[in-house]
């Protein structure tokens, strides 16, 4: 499905009904919007395991952000956290999605934090998967070095310092396969509708200076943070920094040893933790 938002069309897909018969009632279930890791990656990674499991307890909305997948790609000057946040707010507004939970991985999580800080009235719960408050490249270089050896560390350092096309290609070849412990199956990669121009643009611009530590402090809803301890992209140190910034009384923090970026691929049992967290919204 597609809906017109902020002058563009956003693609979304849905799994599980909102209202379900329950004795004499139609009972509304929670809504969770899945924000893709990215930028430049579509929603397809969530379709395999995460969405179907969460749909048992919630209405799951998959969304391709502006610039990726089947949504309008728009143009480079709009590929910013600010625009993506505005798009998600407008998306909820147009479709009357009231108080959804937002689940974001990587930059999806950064968008979720920024949105929750900006519009506390809109967000019921946050699930932040492999999300850092800011990129500190030296931390990632050290982790690539630890997990993949010195070549990986050097390639990462070269790319972060100088994101040319050549260095990007090398980073994709040497470093990206180290994001998760269990490799992404070729079919899964083939299914992604990728906008590499956006990925490269992002790495050369906003990625270098975004920082959501201050907005994280303004979050007013319950937050679940999931972290892989072997994640060279969003490092455990970086995730710890975000955790420090979030309000402690609203926070649940789960760390997974031997799990990489995205956590769910390496540790599928983490999906059930999210289900329970979302279902708790109904009884809370």
């Amino acid at each position, binding site marked *: 499905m597609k809906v017109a938002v902020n002058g563009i069309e956003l693609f979304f897909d849905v*799994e599980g009904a*909102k209202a379900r*018969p329950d004795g004499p009632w*139609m009972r509304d279930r929670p809504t969770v919007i899945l924000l893709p890791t990215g930028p430049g990656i579509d929603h397809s990674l969530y379709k395999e395991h995460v969405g179907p499991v969460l749909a048992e307890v919630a209405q799951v909305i998959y969304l391709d952000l502006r610039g990726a997948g089947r949504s309008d790609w728009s143009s480079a000057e709009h590929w910013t956290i600010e625009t993506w946040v505005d798009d998600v707010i407008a998306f909820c507004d147009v479709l*009357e999605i009231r108080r959804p939970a937002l689940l974001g991985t990587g930059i999806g999580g950064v968008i979720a934090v920024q949105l929750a800080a900006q519009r506390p009235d809109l967000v019921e719960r946050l699930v932040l998967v492999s999300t850092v408050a800011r990129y500190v490249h030296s931390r990632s270089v050290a982790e690539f070095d630890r997990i993949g050896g010195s070549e990986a560390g050097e390639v990462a350092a070269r790319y972060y310092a100088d994101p040319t096309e050549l260095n990007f290609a090398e980073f994709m070849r040497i470093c990206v396969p180290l994001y998760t412990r269990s490799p992404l199956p070729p079919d899964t990669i083939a299914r992604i509708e990728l906008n590499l121009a956006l990925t490269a643009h992002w790495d050369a611009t906003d990625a270098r200076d975004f920082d959501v530590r201050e907005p994280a402090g303004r979050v007013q809803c319950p937050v679940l943070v999931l972290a892989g301890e072997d994640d060279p992209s969003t490092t455990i140190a970086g995730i710890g920094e975000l955790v420090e910034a979030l309000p402690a009384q609203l926070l649940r923090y789960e760390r997974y040893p031997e799990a990489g970026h995205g956590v769910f691929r390496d540790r599928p049992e983490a999906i059930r933790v999210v289900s329970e967290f979302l279902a708790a919204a109904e009884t809370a």
Partner: protein
Amino acid sequence: MRIQVGDVRLFFDVEGTKLVAEGPWMRERQTVVLLHPGPGFDHGLFKVQLGPWLSAGTQVVYTDLRGGGRSDRSTPGERTLERWADDVKELCDAIGVDRPAVLGLGFGSVVALEYAARHPEHPAALILAAPVARILPERSVAVYERLGGPDARAVAERFYDGMDEQAFADFLRVCFPLLSSYALTSDVIARADWNPEVLMEWMRGEAKHLDLRDRLAAIRAPALVLAGEDDAWAPLESVREVFDLLPGHKRFRSYARGRHSVFRDAPEAYEDMRLFLDDIQARELDA
């Protein structure tokens, strides 16, 4: 979810994804839009069995037609077949549903007919359960009598004649239960977000002179027509009339002992729908 369509906001709900992961592809599935009986009723009864069943192989979109359920009530002048039919098209356009299969039951199938006649290129297919081109009281009254005896006939006659509140209350008590072969449990009734005044307004107004017979020639979409042989709302000869006038690819299935609750009464209707939808998916892929 609700979205702006013309002058109203319409509720819709979704079951089943459009895109499913399949090897190296994201495969697109057919979307089926379900139009509930009514008017003034809501989509809820489809959630028990039909929607979940369809969602195994297709993406299902439920909606509440204007005047019922969680959609805006709108105003009497805007609660017309033409408006309901355009709402279906505009809802699909607003949420990016291209080439839907549209399934209607009873009043919903009448809306589907008008929609398909007004927008012939829009639907990929129609599943018309208990459709009629005209509301002919004498045909319905005869079925009520066959199922419920002379009492039911008398109550049905008063209902179609006068449509005052007492006649409507008696109709709900005596005739309404005859529309389904199973006892409509209090749960089903309690769950419905129902506006009987919208039904009454339509029955007293547009329904009296409804005649879609000439309109059906405009329809282009392939159609599966389903009839319950004991359906007092859509008597068999009325459904047959619709089928005979449909110009394109079409299939007719009627079910012994099927009432207006045809999906519930005739489990074999599911197999007929599956075969039809498989053909539609193949056609859409070829197109």
